[in-house]
């Protein structure tokens, strides 16, 4: 580092603003150059002297009180009028919060409005029961194609006497029956066959008036629901809709 550079860096050096490399080069020059060293020492002394002698003006005590007062008044007035310029952040958060609340509320409302109806939820249960019966190889507790075997099996297991009809002559042979649980109660499940297809017919007493039949499709399974003589019926199968309708029609006869 030259004398010229050293003197240009003098202020940055005494202010400790030089990077490490430049500081090292600067100090190496000082050890080699008597003139620069003398100037640097003198500069440091002058600078330290100025630093230690410069008066630092303390704010008068009442100034802080005045400022606190004005700050509070400004905050209050602008806060009351709700157009304070210092409030945008606060207002932003408040708006974001209310927007979030509104969103959460609408989401709840939407879910509440679009919640599945009782019968839709029941239809889901019916389909689940049907799938479970096929998966667990637990289709029938009583394996019989004889309606006279199936019907007595239910006595003592459910608090009603299910109507069991064999539809073998119509191409829907009875395959058996089992106990299932739907709509918070034990129900009868009658199992019918159509070729390789299985039809589950769930039935249980219901206080509802006669209605239906209503057809629907859930997860690819066809369902038919109706109420007759205070009994609720749900027929569910992977059978096509028209053949399932035929089954229901034959059952109704």
């Amino acid at each position, binding site marked *: 580092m030259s004398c010229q550079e050293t*003197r*240009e860096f*003098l*202020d*940055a050096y005494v*202010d400790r*603003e030089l990077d490490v490399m430049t500081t090292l080069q600067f100090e190496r020059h000082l050890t080699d150059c008597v003139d620069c060293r*003398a*100037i640097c020492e*003198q*500069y440091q*002394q*002058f*600078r330290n*002297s*100025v*630093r230690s*002698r*410069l*008066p*630092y*003006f*303390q*704010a*008068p005590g009442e*100034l*802080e009180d*005045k*400022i*606190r007062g*004005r*700050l509070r008044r*400004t*905050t209050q007035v602008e806060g009351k009028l709700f157009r304070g*310029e*210092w409030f*945008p*952040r606060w207002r932003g958060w408040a708006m974001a919060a209310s927007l979030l609340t509104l969103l959460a509320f609408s989401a709840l409302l939407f879910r509440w409005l679009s919640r599945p109806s009782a019968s839709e939820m029941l239809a889901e249960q019916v389909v689940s029961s049907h799938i479970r019966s096929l998966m667990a190889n637990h289709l029938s507790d009583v394996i019989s194609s004889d309606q006279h075997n199936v019907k007595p099996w239910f006595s003592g297991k459910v608090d009603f006497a299910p109507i069991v009809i064999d539809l073998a002559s119509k191409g829907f042979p009875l395959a058996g029956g089992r106990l299932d649980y739907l709509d918070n109660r034990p129900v009868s499940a009658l199992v019918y066959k159509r070729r390789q297809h299985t039809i589950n017919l769930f039935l249980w007493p219901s206080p509802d008036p006669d209605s239906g039949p209503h057809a629907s499709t859930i997860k690819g399974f066809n369902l038919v629901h109706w109420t007759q003589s205070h009994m609720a019926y749900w027929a569910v199968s992977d059978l096509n809709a028209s053949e399932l309708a035929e089954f229901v029609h034959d059952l109704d006869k």
Partner: protein
Amino acid sequence: MFETTVLPHLNSAYNLARWLTRNEHDAEDIVQEAFLRALRSFDTFVLGRDPRAWLLAIVRNSCRTWQRQNRSREAAVPLDDDSHVAVDAWSDPEAVLIKNANSQLLRSVLEELPFEYREVLILRELEELSYKEIAQIVEIPIGTVMSRLSRARKELYDRLGKATGEIEQ
């Protein structure tokens, strides 16, 4: 929030305003107004930044505006930020006298320096801000902070030498 973050730096704000306006009355007015301005723009303050440097920038700008309105009181001094001071002038027999110059003399000499020299000197020597912080407050490049500080110190030194010489005679 504002009071706990910014108000503790009241002394720094007042000290700078007092040095730049050179009188108590204007300094107090400027500091009060600066705090209200700071309050109003507090939402632009980024948490984690140094609130003192942020406040000093507002105070400095208020003082700058005030200085322009009261320009007649001050002789405009052309700033030559780009050229470097001839540091050879430092080796000078008056050095001992200058070193011993009392606080009162130092103050009156510094108060006579141009606004641009005073602000960098106060921010550096009394507030001990870095070149980078000073550059942000005064809105000049860091290199200019260095050369302006250099010239300000030289000017202070020369005027102190002159003043102590006058006292000696």
